[in-house]
């Protein structure tokens, strides 16, 4: 039966390829139905599997871990396209298995959607699970956050592999207690950076100890609810870190981890946490230090995560924000920059965004400094306009342009520095609109 399913799957992939289509998710969806919803169980995977999950940073961390092994000369399989549900992983493995379903690689490195961790890894044996963080994100798809954590916690109760956890996120660190018999639980941690605060700055989750309900005490918050916490009731949060990031200086940017100095390309505290997770995997698998150095110091992204565009001579920075934490970080970066600037906020509410847009009310817009104009766009352009208005920003400086090309043209009318924030499904269309403008706009200027 399994062989038959593999055959069917391979034929579907072939047909899609012949049609010139990318075999992203569809073969997996078909096999999901044919296999009684266990589409990952048809494969034979003998190599170690490393999975990365969490709300923010999955793609970055997965790619960096893949590089660690690639540069060590290993053959790896990775879901680079971000197909991170069971069906997407099934489609990926179909392309890399033989007719008996055997997957040939040294390591399988899989970005995995939070809600699909138990689904996929009840079917494929997992060696290492990296959990980055849990934030409010697409709550309406996943049900409540607590339900989501419970799901992964349920999986961790019987998981005896390596568990690498963000020790500064109580939502994540609690997974370390799920299976008391598992001795392979490791926490990564970061010392305070220059903008860490002693009071909480943004709306967030996880204010109470999940074990004894005491209020968690924080020595400092890095951003949102990420920081050094401890429960005075039961001692939750008192652990010895496996890897600690210290001497973080985002101006350079540099940080130390486990005694080594790293000079990453990206200057956000997010990236420091992501790279500390990468350094933990590197330590666990005894990757050569020179390889880890080169991965961490060269990693950069050009997928709408702090990506730069030029609108004529106006420098424009685009950042993806799927949730308030991401948006607040961009606003901070924007504020920390001197001089006047304008903001374009593109907000969509497509299915993948999670239909509901109320998370924009958890963004702290009252910190706006030297923002001279705001343009809003996307399918929920008016929602974000109302939100910014009610934070006290002068409504006469808000321009609503639901059409993206019109919004970009409007943004380019004036001189000066520009920032663009776009949510999940908005980010690619926004990149295209910015590119269209800089290409056409450039020509127009010459004429």
């Amino acid at each position: 039966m399994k062989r038959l399913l593999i055959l069917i799957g391979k034929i579907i992939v072939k047909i899609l390829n012949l049609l010139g289509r990318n075999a992203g998710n569809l073969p997996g969806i078909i096999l999901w139905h044919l296999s009684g919803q266990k589409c990952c169980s048809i494969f034979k995977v003998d190599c170690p599997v490393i999975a990365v999950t969490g709300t923010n940073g999955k793609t970055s961390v997965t790619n960096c871990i893949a590089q660690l092994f690639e540069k060590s000369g290993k053959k790896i399989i990775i879901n680079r396209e971000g197909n991170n549900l069971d069906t997407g992983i099934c489609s990926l493995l179909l392309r890399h298995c033989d007719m008996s379903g055997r997957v040939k690689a040294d390591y399988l490195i899989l970005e995995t959607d939070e809600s699909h961790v138990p689904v996929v890894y009840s079917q494929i044996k997992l060696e290492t699970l990296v959990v980055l963080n849990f934030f409010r994100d697409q709550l309406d798809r996943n049900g409540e956050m607590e339900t989501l954590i419970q799901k992964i916690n349920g999986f961790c109760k019987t998981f005896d592999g390596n568990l690498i956890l963000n020790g500064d996120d109580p939502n994540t660190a609690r997974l370390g207690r799920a299976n008391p018999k598992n001795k392979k639980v490791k926490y990564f941690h970061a010392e305070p950076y220059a903008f860490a605060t002693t009071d909480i700055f943004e709306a967030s989750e996880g204010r109470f100890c999940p074990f004894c309900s005491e209020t968690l005490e924080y020595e400092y918050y890095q951003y949102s609810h990420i920081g050094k916490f401890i429960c005075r009731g039961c001692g939750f949060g008192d652990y010895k870190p496996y890897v600690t990031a210290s001497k973080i200086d985002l101006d350079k940017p540099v940080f130390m981890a486990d005694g080594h100095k790293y000079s990453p390309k990206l200057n956000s505290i997010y990236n420091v946490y992501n790279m500390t997770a990468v350094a933990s995997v590197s330590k666990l698998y005894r990757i050569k230090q020179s390889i880890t150095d080169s991965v961490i110091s060269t990693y950069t992204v050009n997928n709408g995560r702090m990506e730069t565009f030029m609108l004529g001579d106006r420098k424009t920075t685009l950042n993806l924000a799927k949730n308030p934490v991401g948006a607040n970080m961009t606003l901070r970066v924007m504020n920390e920059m001197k001089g006047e600037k304008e903001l374009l906020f593109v907000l969509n509410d497509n299915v993948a965004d999670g239909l509901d847009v109320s998370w924009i009310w958890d963004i702290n817009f009252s910190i706006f400094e030297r923002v001279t104009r705001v343009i809003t766009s996307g399918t929920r352009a008016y929602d974000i306009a109302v939100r910014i208005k009610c934070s006290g920003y002068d409504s006469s400086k808000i321009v609503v342009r639901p059409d993206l090309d019109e919004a970009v043209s409007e943004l380019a009318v004036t001189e000066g520095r520009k920032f663009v924030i776009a949510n999940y499904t908005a980010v690619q269309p926004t990149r295209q609109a910015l590119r269209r403008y800089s290409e056409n706009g450039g020509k127009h200027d010459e004429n």
Partner: protein
Amino acid sequence: MKIKILHMYADMLDLYGDSGNMEIIKYRCGKRGIECIIDKYSVGDDMPYFPEYDLVYIGGGADLEQQHISADLLKCRQGIKKAYKSGTFLFLICGGYQLMGKYYRDADGNEIKGLGLFDYFTIAPSSRKKRCIGNIVIKTEITGKPVKVVGFENHGGQTQGVKNPFGTVLYGNGNCSKSSAEGYFEKNVIATYLHGPMLAKNPEISDYMISYCINRKSDRLIKLARLDDKLEKECRKVMIERLLNK
């Protein structure tokens, strides 16, 4: 002019931008020169004197947070009841709405006692997957004119025994799965499942409450100054056209 608001459990019950409702009321008061004081109360704080407030606000939370506060809320029962009887406005969203009824029975059959201020009760279906989730449009006439109110609902609990709903459902679920009634209303109570935050696109509802609060102790009718609500109304129009005129 001044209104005093007590925002209860702001640190725990804040789902889908519920705290935004307070920001909106404060904004709309500020634009009119009405002083708006918002005090906060949460678990373990000194018991406030509820009747001194013009409005008491409680938002919604995840199940875990709701369990955390329910015992504390019961301690406030006498105070809240006294305030409600003396005309304090109760503005309740989702969990806040449920806990003012007789009881809330969760998916496992555990019963959380409500304050019993009102006769309705809420039962969550045994399957956690059965939730009422999505955009919702209701029609209400509480301001004297029909107003379409747009929000976002996400609740498992099915609220029954509501005598006087806040509005009728034009799109979405309401009090129960695919029901026609949404929320609960009295002249000084708005209880609803609408998040979003609810007041973002519905300035008439904010103004109904603000107007109630400043008039409740006044001998003559104070009319609210009109504000420029172009963005809010356009925002609502876009959603209504999308959801109702398909």
